[in-house]
């Protein structure tokens, strides 16, 4: 009983305080306190995340599921970085307190933590992101087909934006005077028209829709109607 009532009460109280804090200066400090709790919880969530990472990967290794070696590499990397960071291995001494070795910074490129970040983690994440270019090109070739009116509109928009986002836009249509009657044929003009009018109008509608959804969901949570965030049962 308490396992469900207490979290619902904390959530309801926090939600009401945060709402009041927005409208009444008298309750601003209460709202700040609640936000501090949130920050502490967000930091604790990293510990929960680490626990979850351990549980999932250890289970994968112990049951020798396909790809278990990747799970082992994940865990070794995790403990390596955790150890380097927590123990400040090879930390560069702090100029203000050179006599206290633990006062040094652990994340400069001279320390193992910083070196791995700089020369392993950073290039790997950039590579992962860069690989999208290859898959997007392949997907565009296979899936971007002018099958109906909607897809033709999408294709036309894509061409305009792809060209206008580079020097090709100015090269192809930059010669049309900006103040002429044909300025609307300039790719940069078309890009502005698409992004600032069509795209922004659509995005505003989506944003308002999302905001209404957030309000509805928040009210359901604060009033204790939606309990899906609690454990099963």
């Amino acid at each position, binding site marked *: 009983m308490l396992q469900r009532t207490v979290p619902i009460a904390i959530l309801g109280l926090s939600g009401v305080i945060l709402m009041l804090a927005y409208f009444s200066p008298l309750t601003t400090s209460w709202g700040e306190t609640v936000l501090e709790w949130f*920050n502490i919880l967000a930091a604790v969530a990293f510990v929960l995340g680490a626990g979850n990472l351990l549980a999932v990967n250890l289970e994968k290794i112990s049951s020798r599921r396909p790809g278990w070696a990747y799970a082992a590499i994940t865990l070794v990397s995790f403990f390596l970085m955790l150890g380097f960071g927590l123990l400040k291995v090879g930390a560069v001494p702090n100029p*203000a307190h050179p006599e206290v070795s633990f006062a040094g910074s652990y994340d400069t490129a001279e320390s193992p933590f910083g070196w791995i970040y700089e020369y392993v983690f950073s290039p790997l994440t950039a590579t992962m992101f860069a690989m999208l270019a290859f898959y997007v090109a392949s997907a565009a070739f296979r899936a971007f087909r002018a099958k109906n009116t909607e897809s033709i509109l999408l294709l036309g928009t894509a061409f305009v934006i792809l060209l206008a986002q580079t020097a090709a836009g100015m090269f192809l249509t930059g010669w049309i005077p900006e103040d002429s009657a044909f300025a609307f044929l300039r790719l940069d003009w078309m890009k502005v028209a698409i992004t600032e009018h069509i795209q922004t109008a659509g995005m505003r509608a989506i944003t308002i829709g999302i905001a209404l959804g957030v309000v509805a969901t928040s009210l359901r949570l604060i009033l204790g109607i939606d309990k899906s965030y609690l454990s099963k049962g």
Partner: protein
Amino acid sequence: MNTNTHDRQGGGGGGSFLSRLGGLDRRWIFLAMGLSIAVPILLKLRFPEVPGPMARATFDAIESIPAGSRVLLAFDYDPASAGELQPMANAMVHHCAARGHRIVFMALWPLGKQMADATIKDVLLEFHPQYAYGTDYVQLGYKAGNEAVVKLMATDIPQQYSTDAAGAALASLPLVADVKSTTDFKLVASISAGYPGAKEWVQYANSANPEAFKLVSGSTGVQVSQLLPYYPAQMEGLLVAVKGAAEYEMLVTAAYPSADKPDLLAERLGQGRVRMGPQLVAHLLMIGLIILGNIAMVAGRSRGGAR
């Protein structure tokens, strides 16, 4: 290398070249994309850029605040987006320092602090060695909590950050000793790759005090549609993807060249323009591929119809 079944479709004999094109092995596409990126980089292709209104608005926002103002730069991204966002971060830090603004760095992303550290080392201290820690710039570092961090920054910064990233009390750092909230800054800039980032700065900091400070942002291309509704009313400037970075770089380097390190400045603040070369060729390749794919579809249909 495995290829999916679609790659092999149409590969059999009998079909016309155009209809068989639909089954083009994707490894050819990967090769073409690789070349379209590698060749412009190796040849150092650069194309002329014309600064657009958004880049100009960002430049003007930083120009319009009094020289020596206190500004807050939030590095809300990580190395995955550095290719797109680091050029604009470099240019923005140089711009602020050239104007004599005093800069407070912070991050809503765990690795944002490292991105800011690299920018401080490569740009701020390289071209503005007179900048002293504590009086001219401060690194607050990363704080967990997403939008709650922004919301608390808008009301009580010492409660959010009792120390800087190195553990020094804010009260001991002249630049931030008297800072209470984001209203003590003339400008807030978020270099943002997504959530939490520029949108949260608009919703929780700017909306609380719309007149107190100017807000500008640098954004990745994929999330810019979420930010466009806020420009230019709530967000005075918005740099969009590599193109925005290249345009802004042009404005900043033209206005604030380096007298003693011109080549190094051209290299560090030319990354956006360097990346526009591969982007141009890659975009043209994409357009070519889409056209080819559609020609293959039409050819395949007419072949099916002829049967």
